């Protein structure tokens, strides 16, 4: 796999989204990579409201087998989602289960008019009927399950994509 430059993918994602968002569009990042990404997208797209964040730990369908995550972050939706245009932001789209969990959690806060999904990378391997509306890069071949692709935030706030062999 050729190395992926998270910073240039981030810029590409911003340009992809720009024509489709208005000042009232709301971003919700999924912990942790999606929150970092949403923090980047928000000023670049000139959105009014600060992004919200979701920790999907309690909404995952594999909750029973994984057990309780005592380090779960606080879900923080600081705006009214009722009737709003919401874009869920995540770093990497894989099985789609995280996105499903985020959708379920989001709807516990109200009924948005429209929900879209923005991701930096689509790594393939979907297990649910979910697709990203905005995606900076789709891998030509799905990654094997033993590999983990994730976003990292460096000390200077720059973003890097890292591939780990589990």
């Amino acid at each position, binding site marked *: 796999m050729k190395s992926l430059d998270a910073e240039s993918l981030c810029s590409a994602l911003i340009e992809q989204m720009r024509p489709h968002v208005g000042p009232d569009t709301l971003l919700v990042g999924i912990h942790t990579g999606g929150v970092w990404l949403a923090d980047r997208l928000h000023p670049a797209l000139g959105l009014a409201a600060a992004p919200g964040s979701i*920790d999907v730990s*309690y*909404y995952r369908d594999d*909750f*029973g087998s994984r*057990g*309780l995550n*005592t*380090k*779960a*972050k*606080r*879900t*923080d939706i600081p705006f009214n989602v009722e009737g709003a245009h919401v874009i869920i932001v995540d770093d990497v789209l894989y099985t789609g289960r995280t996105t499903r969990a985020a959708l*379920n959690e989001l*709807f*516990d*806060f*109200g009924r948005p008019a429209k929900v879209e999904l923005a991701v930096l990378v689509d790594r393939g391997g979907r297990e649910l009927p979910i697709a990203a509306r905005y995606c900076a890069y789709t891998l030509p071949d799905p990654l094997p399950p033993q590999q983990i692709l994730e976003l990292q935030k460096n000390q200077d706030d720059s973003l890097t994509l890292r591939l780990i062999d589990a």
Partner: protein
Amino acid sequence: MRNPQLNKNGELQHLLTLDGLPRDILTAILDTAAPFTEVAEREVKKLPILRGKSIFNLFFENSTRTRTTFEIAAKRLSADVVNLNVSTSSTAKGESLLDTVDNLCAMQADMFVVRHAASGAPFLIAQHLFANGRNDIHVINAGDGRHAHPTQGLLDMYTIRHFKQDFTQLTVAIVGDVLHSRVARSQISALTTLGVPEVRVIGPKTLLPTEVERMGVRVFHDMREGLKDVDVVMMLRLQNERMNGALLPTPQEFYKVWGLTAEKLALARPDAIVMHPGPMNRGVEIDSAVADGAQAVILPQVTFGIAVRMAVMSMLAA
């Protein structure tokens, strides 16, 4: 002997008492509770954590607040809750405690929340489940006799941590009827485990257990002396219903000597918080002006109690 509250991996299996529970488990419960406080602000106040689980509230002794907060906590975790008012049902017809438990197990119970006037009743149920190989069923002690009330102790610790952050710098006073109080025992265990350097108990000799010093506390029989420079004042309820004989003169006289008034509270640190587990006897152990005053955190205690009970239930059954 193995701690009967922990399974072989050292995880919480039942919550029966805070006595002997390691600090990392106490801290994990408080940490788990923190994100649950936000659920109350949602339009749908529910998380899907205990979907499909059946929780039985077994209250052999009356309680409104504790039963209600357990019920709300279970419902916010999407569990199915069944309330048994046992005092008016089978027990009154002569069924034994363990027969009641066996019957509820046959109804696919996943968890029992037990309040009982007899100290040790929740232990008995936990032992019975263990003997029957039912490690998939969990017991939470919601108050047994004079022994323990662990979730109250935990919500008090959550409240203290919320307002004071660091346990290791605090002086905490527990005031009143310690003798009849299961809450006080749970509070003392938890405060000591979490590293509070000075725990004081303040009360008349007749309402303090003998050898209370052995629990690692400083004893005061003078309220003014005991409240001096404390960071946290934890009032206890005067337990009229548990009192036999002449331990006390009248409630009015108790108030004069042991009631928390603004004047006595002024001896504590200016930023001291005032706690009370409820139900309050205004004008007996606490003055109305203090109970409603700026230093009181009695209603936040109730709110935090829901999050803490959610944390315990999800750690046990998820």
